[in-house]
């Protein structure tokens, strides 16, 4: 019970409180709220990734596959069959979860870099399929969500703030799932698998099932993020939705820069990287071609050189965090 008021929880609560109050201070149709929404959305994506990447230490570089599946499923259901994206979102999650389960079969034995590259290839496969099945997916041109004004039942709103609230809700849900997994029985098993798979098996952990569960949940949540992203930006095409650098790597990078496998990592990472990129773009992109990306890369390198274990390492080093950790193991 004393955990309820631990400094880490307090910090988390503070974060969500600040996030909830933020729209009051911003123009509901402006740029800043869009950036804030992007921060939260990318935090949710990174948190979904963190379930596989952080808890199970399966560094996936192909989560864009699930992200895109979510976006395509809900959007196509809506465009072709008129199914509201609220339902499409769920269907997308199921489809992505199924795809993750299918992908687990050939990849579950793979470790480390081999796993990373197999997932990367999977996302590429999805991209090529979306690109070449023009009749179904709209092909390389991509898909547009029709402009319908404000229709909450169809997941369409006029103000960015509405999307912001939805994304905030999504982030809270993803964080809750992450926390439940991390602190529950499966959390123990995932960490065991992460640290030594053979030993975990011998200690009675069904490593395949544990990994499968984690990747299905992670993929499903990622797909939900994909649907929300599609609804929020109204347009996507295969190259951007299945993008290695734009989605897959970014999800992983946020979690890693923030702190792999920690609940706060994706939040901190998104809060650091997304605004940073935005500022670099706003300030530098009219100066010289490439300068803003260059600056972003330099800062990224700097962040990793200074703290390779992620920004959360600073928090974990503070006395408050230490007491919490001791309490957690004692509980």
């Amino acid at each position: 019970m004393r955990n309820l008021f631990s400094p880490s929880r307090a910090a988390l609560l503070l974060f969500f409180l600040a996030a909830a109050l933020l729209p009051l201070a911003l123009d509901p149709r402006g740029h800043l709220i869009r950036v804030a929404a992007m921060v939260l959305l990318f935090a949710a994506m990174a948190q979904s990734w963190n379930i596989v990447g952080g808890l199970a230490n399966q560094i996936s570089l192909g989560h864009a596959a699930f992200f895109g599946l979510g976006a395509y499923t809900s959007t196509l259901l809506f465009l072709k069959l008129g199914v509201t994206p609220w339902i499409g979102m769920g269907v997308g999650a199921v489809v992505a979860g199924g795809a993750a389960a299918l992908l687990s079969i050939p990849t579950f034995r793979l470790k480390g870099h081999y796993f990373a590259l197999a997932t990367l290839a999977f996302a590429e496969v999805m991209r090529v399929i979306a690109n070449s099945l023009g009749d179904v997916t709209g092909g390389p041109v991509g898909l547009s969500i029709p402009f319908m004004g404000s229709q909450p039942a169809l997941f369409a709103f006029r103000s960015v703030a509405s999307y912001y609230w939805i994304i905030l809700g999504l982030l809270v849900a993803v964080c809750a799932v992450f926390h439940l997994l991390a602190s529950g029985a499966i959390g123990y098993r995932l960490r065991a698998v992460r640290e030594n798979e053979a030993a975990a098996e011998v200690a009675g952990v069904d490593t395949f099932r544990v990994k499968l569960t984690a990747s299905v949940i992670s993929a499903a949540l990622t797909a939900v993020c994909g649907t929300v992203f599609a609804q929020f930006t109204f347009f996507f095409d295969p190259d951007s939705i299945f993008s290695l650098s734009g989605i897959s790597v970014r999800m992983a990078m946020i979690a890693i820069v923030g702190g792999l496998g920690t609940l706060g990592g994706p939040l901190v990472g998104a809060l650091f990287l997304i605004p940073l990129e935005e500022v670099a773009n706003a300030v530098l992109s009219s100066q010289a071609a490439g300068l803003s990306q260059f600056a972003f890369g330099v800062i990224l390198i700097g962040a990793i050189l200074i703290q390779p274990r992620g920004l959360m390492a600073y928090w974990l080093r503070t006395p408050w965090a230490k007491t919490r950790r001791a309490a957690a193991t004692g509980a």
Partner: protein
Amino acid sequence: MQPLLQADAICVTFGGLKAVDGVSFSLNAGEIVGLIGPNGAGKTTLFNALVGLQPLTSGTVWLDGERVCGLKPHKVARLGMTKTFQNAALFPDMSVKENVTTAALLRHDLKGARAKADTVLRKLDLTPIADADVADLTFPQKALVEMARALATEPRVLLLDEVMAALTPAEMDEVMAVIRALKAEGLAFLVVEHHMRAIMALCDRLLAVNFGRLIADGTPAQVAAHPQVIEAYLGHGAAGKEAAHA
């Protein structure tokens, strides 16, 4: 009475190498059997084959009348057989108790597993270090935690792979006392160890392997006196004599 563990002509090959070559033996409840043999004789491989970490090329393994070969390790663990790792393979980012709890989850829910872990840790006198990170442990402590983790799966057969290597004689005695206490509860052990002093003092029976093949099976005294065992493993020097003294 049927033996608790029965291995029938098991073989494991790596490419052309026969690491385990037609080994058959049995193990009864409450028995401690030692497995000795030169380096590379196939002892660890045999262990891995028994628990399902290493697929068998041929042969059968029965655990209490059930075929366990071809099952994944976690299934074998559920049926009651597990092993420790030659080079302690703990989960380094977890505390001692978390390591043990993970294994206890095999038969309990989270709450029950925590309680089970406490019991096991108490039994092995590890309660004082329950919250320590395993990365900070000393070698013998690690070996004990390996055993604790294995015990938390509530096995009937426990395979110990050199848990006493690198222990001082005094430390070895402590571990042997624990093993004997567990034997009294009905656990069966298969023990790999190169310390003949420990092996001779602990085991009811010895198996000796060389080049993957079983070369001797009998009481410790019989096996230690077996010419092939002396030739391939014990030698005539000081180390071998140590065995004879024990």
